[in-house]
């Protein structure tokens, strides 16, 4: 069984890769290609978001700000610092990763509510700073990032399509590696029950901080790549709460526990956004649609569409196990036994059967 499953899985990944790489060839015109670049950009961003959201369960609405920082960092290093574009891109990502340490330090010391508040505030304060600090950032006049290659516009799109695809592959591989590692295990224990994880000796704060920095670095890379591709930066659009919310929607819709969840979400939401723009471009109905979709996902599908569809498929396939969450718990236990981690949380059920207990700890915890 595992062998067949693995072959199928690899086959699916190869197929996906082929589909992604073949897209520029079949895209009928440059506009569709540019929409494809945008969707890939979303896919990288939401996958990067999922380092924090998926592993630790901390929902950040502020990743738009990290992408904006990466974009402005790259743009400023190229336009004002005169660095070569791709050196600027990586340098900017490194700077954002360094900045993520103090940001994470303030944001991750607190749980839940405050973390969300900090993440939203990050977007709002950076918007103010980048608007006001016009002598450096260009303020509302915007920042023009020189083109890295001298190409016609369709060619420019094509090159960046592949660059984004490569970045996506790197982000996916990084996520996959963490997912399989002990580090990932520790992170997931934070998601399931932070208090217990801490009590059992996991260095929860350090874990959270490290994964936040990794997430920030990938987000900044995506933002910087966007800057090189798009060429015009404006604080209002770079530091927008809406961007952050799109990323959350994409990841949740696809499924935060899945490697390909955010990618699936990005494709659905990205295509839907383009569709709404083309069909209902002259109304703010895209906001209504985004709001409705987000509410529906939160209320009825908090695990995302991939597990939901997976469950549906499994109804027709009795040979597989019944619930995605059981699989993940079993997997946790299996890995834990294998690695002799010495902690005892493995036996704790995740998901629905665990909710009651977590809820009580949370309610009870308020009185401590």
């Amino acid at each position, binding site marked *: 069984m595992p062998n067949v499953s693995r072959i199928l899985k690899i086959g699916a990944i190869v197929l996906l890769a082929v589909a992604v790489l073949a897209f520029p060839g*079949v895209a009928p015109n440059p506009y569709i290609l540019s929409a494809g670049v945008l969707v890939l950009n979303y896919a990288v961003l939401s996958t990067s978001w999922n380092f924090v959201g998926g592993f630790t369960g901390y929902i950040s609405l502020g990743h738009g700000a990290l992408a904006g920082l990466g974009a402005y960092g790259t743009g400023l290093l190229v336009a004002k610092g005169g660095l070569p574009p791709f050196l600027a891109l990586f340098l900017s990502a490194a700077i954002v990763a360094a900045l993520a340490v103090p940001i994470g330090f303030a944001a991750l010391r607190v749980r839940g509510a405050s973390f969300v508040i900090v993440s939203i505030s990050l977007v709002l304060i950076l918007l103010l700073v980048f608007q006001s600090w016009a002598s450096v950032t260009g303020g509302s006049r915007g920042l023009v990032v020189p083109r890295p290659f001298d190409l016609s516009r369709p060619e420019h799109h094509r090159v960046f399509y592949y660059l984004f695809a490569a970045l996506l592959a790197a982000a996916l591989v990084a996520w996959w590696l963490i997912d399989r590692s002990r580090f990932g295990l520790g992170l997931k224990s934070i998601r399931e029950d932070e208090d217990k994880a801490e009590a059992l000796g996991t260095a929860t704060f350090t874990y959270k901080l490290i994964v936040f920095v990794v997430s920030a670095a990938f987000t900044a890379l995506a933002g910087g790549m966007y800057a090189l591709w798009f060429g015009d930066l404006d604080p209002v659009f770079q530091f927008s709460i809406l961007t952050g919310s799109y990323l959350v929607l994409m990841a949740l819709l696809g499924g935060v526990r899945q490697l390909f969840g955010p990618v*699936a979400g990005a494709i659905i939401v990205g295509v839907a956004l383009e569709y709404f723009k*083309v069909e209902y471009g002259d109304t703010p109905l895209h906001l209504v649609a985004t709001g409705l979709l987000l509410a529906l996902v939160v209320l009825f599908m908090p695990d995302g569409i991939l597990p939901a569809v*997976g469950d549906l498929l499994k109804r027709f396939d009795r040979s597989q196990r019944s619930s995605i969450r059981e699989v993940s718990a079993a997997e946790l236990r299996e890995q834990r036994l294998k690695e002799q981690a010495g902690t005892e949380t493995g036996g704790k059920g995740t998901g629905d059967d665990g909710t009651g207990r977590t809820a009580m700890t949370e309610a009870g915890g308020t009185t401590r």
Partner: protein
Amino acid sequence: MPTTSSHARFPMKFLAASMILTLGACSGGGGGDEGGGSDDPIVIGISLPLTGDFSEPGKGVQQGYEAWAKVVNDKGGLLGRQVELKILDDQSNADRVVADYEQLIGKDQVDLVFGPFSTRLVVPSARVAEEYDMLFVEPAGAAKEVFEQGFKNLFYAAPAVANDHYNYLAEKILAMPADQRPKTAAYAAMDDPFAQGTAYGLKEKLEAGGVRTVVDEVYPPNTTDFSGIAAKITDSKADVLVGGSQYQDGVNLIVALQQLGYQPKLAAFSTAPTNPEFASAIGNKTAGVLSPTGYSQDAKYPSNTEFVEKYTAQFGKAPEEDQANGYTTGQVVAAAVTAAGCAEQGDCQQKLIDWLRTNTVETVVGPLSWDDTGKPKGAHMIQQWVGGDIKIVLPEDVKEAEFSYPKPAW
């Protein structure tokens, strides 16, 4: 060992396929003609902010474009072909405006493009047009930054750039006898290249002429509470008040200043005072407010008489500056198309650009010609609210009323 991601395989395949299908399907519709054919309409692609921060002036420009298309089509079209506008909404968003022009030029294969509204959106969209080698005549990117980007395809279809809007007013003030001339000035400008450009253009000239700057405030476009800025200005007791405003911010600032009882000797605001809603919005306390304008309904240019008449018949009211800017854009492109004898993507666009570079076009705002950066070589008139009506007071040769200084109390 089954992993969670293995369950993704089926949906992923569907999604990858559906992405291609959906995106591909988008390109199927949206009738672009293949150019060339002499009976096909000339399709003109436009992206405008019909929702969002700039939706108000965006709609004005749209009406100007529509009025122009109707006038042209009623006369039998351009080069014997009917004109068809394809207008998309960019939600006042730079990402959108780029995607819009990408769609219009790359997918819909429009023959010509017109510009969007607001400097913020003009620069990114002009780059798209440039990289597709399209002529880009725009009605609203008046800030000087637009002309510093090295665009070779851009022309601004209005008499003057933002920094030159107050030229006549600056001359007038500096020509006053030294004992009457204002001593101090307060500036408040929206953080927007156009709005700041107007205020700072005047500021530079007044400072050079010895008028001291006592307040210099910049506020973000989403500001709604102006009481802090108003308090500073009131406290400074500046003689001259200059507002680099769009519309609503100008109204809010004036109301906040009136709440504090501030009475300047001269008050000039860009854009806001020429809006038909302005007087009622500030409770008719308009006395003496100045504003630069590039357009007058009463101007004697031949095409203007026709524009005012046809526009009023079509929309039931007289056109304002935004509408005139849209209409002017149409006139400029039409002149180039008629002279070059073509209107399609490809080599034709360069012919259009070359022609405009060296010729003068008669428009509803007067004759227009451009320098190498696409900057128009003209100046704006100055209007003033006199007894419940806004009248041209500068320059002297076209004035409808006397310039009044110090202005009456509002």
